């Protein structure tokens, strides 16, 4: 599904290398977790994959089902099946959540040469999916993320994911700012989307999210590289011992 090879990225504005050769392969149906200390480049990786400006790829590639993501505009990456759940979902005053969702769903359908969803069908689907995430009608009517609590914003990200049905989902610290109940709700939303044709890359600081979203593979990232890859037990090791031993081992 997702193949990242030797990815080197620096900030455009300053001469600062953030990613220094990331290699990562995620197969369809798998859930991978990336853990790592602050500043290791986890969020940068997610932004670069989604196509945010401000970064320069100096080397390497990232393909989604064989197509080079790094040559595409952000909207093309989305239409190709990539989705990034933001660490800090953006508030957009003046744009209704429903308008936003429907515009996004239909833009992707159009880009893929599919028929647009009618207003009636869209409403039915969005209501059903919102209900399972405990997102009420009032929240759907409000401007995108405006006045949403931290938990509501994250649930709204998962709703977008559920509506867009991407193939490759990247969750950037989706657990940050969530209480135990909200984390459970969000995890259930994610787990409901798990299937053989879809893959997840879950970026997190903490092991506890991985109690709810069980990963197949865990990677440890530090200083712009993946320094260790293992099974779910690697996350438990980090939780108990911190990163110090792993970092020392890598050097």
């Amino acid at each position, binding site marked *: 599904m997702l193949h990242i090879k030797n990815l080197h990225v620096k900030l455009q504005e300053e001469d600062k290398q953030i990613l220094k050769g990331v290699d990562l392969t995620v197969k369809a149906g798998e859930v991978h977790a990336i853990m790592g200390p602050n500043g290791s480049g986890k969020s940068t990786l997610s932004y670069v994959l989604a*196509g*945010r400006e401000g970064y320069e790829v100096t080397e390497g590639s990232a393909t989604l089902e064989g197509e080079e993501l790094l040559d595409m505009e952000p*909207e093309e990456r989305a239409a190709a099946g990539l*989705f990034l759940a933001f660490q800090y979902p*953006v508030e*957009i005053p003046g744009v209704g959540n429903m308008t936003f969702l429907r*515009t996004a769903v239909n833009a992707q359908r159009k880009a893929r040469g599919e028929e647009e969803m009618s207003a009636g069908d869209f409403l039915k689907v969005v209501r059903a999916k919102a209900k399972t995430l405990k997102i009420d009608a009032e929240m759907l009517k409000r401007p995108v993320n405006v006045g949403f609590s931290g938990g509501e914003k994250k649930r709204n990200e998962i709703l977008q994911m559920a509506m867009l049905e991407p193939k490759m989902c990247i969750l950037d610290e989706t657990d940050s700012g969530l209480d135990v109940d909200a984390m459970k709700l969000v995890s259930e939303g994610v787990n409901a989307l798990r299937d053989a044709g879809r893959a997840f890359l879950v970026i997190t600081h903490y092991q506890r999210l991985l109690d709810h979203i069980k990963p197949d593979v865990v990677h440890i990232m530090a200083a712009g590289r993946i320094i260790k890859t293992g099974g779910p037990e690697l996350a438990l090791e980090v939780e108990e011992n911190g990163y110090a031993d792993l970092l020392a081992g890598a050097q």
Partner: protein
Amino acid sequence: MALVQAKQDQLAARIAGLSFRREGWLGAARAEALARLTAMGLPGKRDEYWRYTDPTSLTAVDAPQAALFDAGDEAMVFDGIDRLKVVFVDGVFDAAASDDLTLSGVEIERLAQAGGADIHWARDLYGVLEARGQKPVERPLAALNSAFATDGVMIRVTGRAARPVSLIYHHSSDRSDVILHHVVKLEDGAELTVLENGPAAARFSGVMEVEVGAGARFHHIRSQGRDHQRRAVTHLFARVGAGAAFKSFTVTANGVLTRNEAVLELAGDDAVAHVAGAAVGDGDFHHDDTVFVTHAGLRCESRQVFKKVLMNGAVGVFQGKILVKQGAQKTDGYQISQALLLDGDSQFLAKPELEIYADDVKCSHGSTSGAIDEVALFYLRSRGVPERVAQSLLVLAFLAEAIGEIEDEAIAEDIRARLEGWLTRHEH
């Protein structure tokens, strides 16, 4: 002295070709307006009030040429709204295209036919609010309009009008130079909506004087554009009585020169005046909103909400003043003017002013200009929304607060959909 002489010569040249009609009470009102104009002279580039907008093309003898605009198959604004249509083509009343000027609770007279008739209510209004609005700032182009307007409507409302009165302007000659003057009188408790739309002329001067009686409600929704080469100067004068409401909204798309002045006086206690605008322009677009709100009554509320989207060197101007007179306690005045600059070449020039002579008032004003929110743009694009659509969504979101000032849902939706269409079309 030379300057004074030059000013007099300029005015003489400007009005030489205009016909001055002396008949009846209207002739007397026109003569007074002409006297005001002669005392003031035409505005010039050096005048403080015209610092950001060059009046030269508005004071020139001839209207600069303006190519006619073809809207293609796009229906006109307000097309789906049930309304009484009054049509002017290059300033000339078009009876065939207009509806019968009869509406329950409403009297409608045409200015061109009013000179001889004794229409006492219009007599107390025509040029009267314009004259009041000449202080403390002179507005010579409004006086010129009162003196030389060729037509317009005079509307008196005694009840609740069943339908909006819709003034529709068509532009058919690329040199047309049009001066129209409307007066509206709402008796106590009456209610009326006036709609205005369409390209009026190569050069258009429009004045509307509105007297809102106690407890009455007046709504004004105006659409200017999308014709680009025309020039327009408009003045809205209103006096709002006790417990009455005056609400005006203007959407402007394109136009090399638009100057919209609003001079509003909250005369009675508990009166409300809202004036708002949403403008979108590209290239040599120049759009000026100049507003003067006077609070004279107790517990009055005024709102000014102006939003402009500017690109490729377009210029937006806002001059807005709130004057709170002595004794106008518990005034609530709000003013916001904002520009969204889609590139580094566009300019927004804002001069917000407050002048307050009462001590128990709440007045706020703010003015900002900024670029499109790149983070929001990326967020939308990351969900698959193409960049152009995402930008249009953010532009509409920026304009939403101004459009939100329109009370009538159907009209607001018409304007919103229209802007969305224009923005999308613009980008293809």
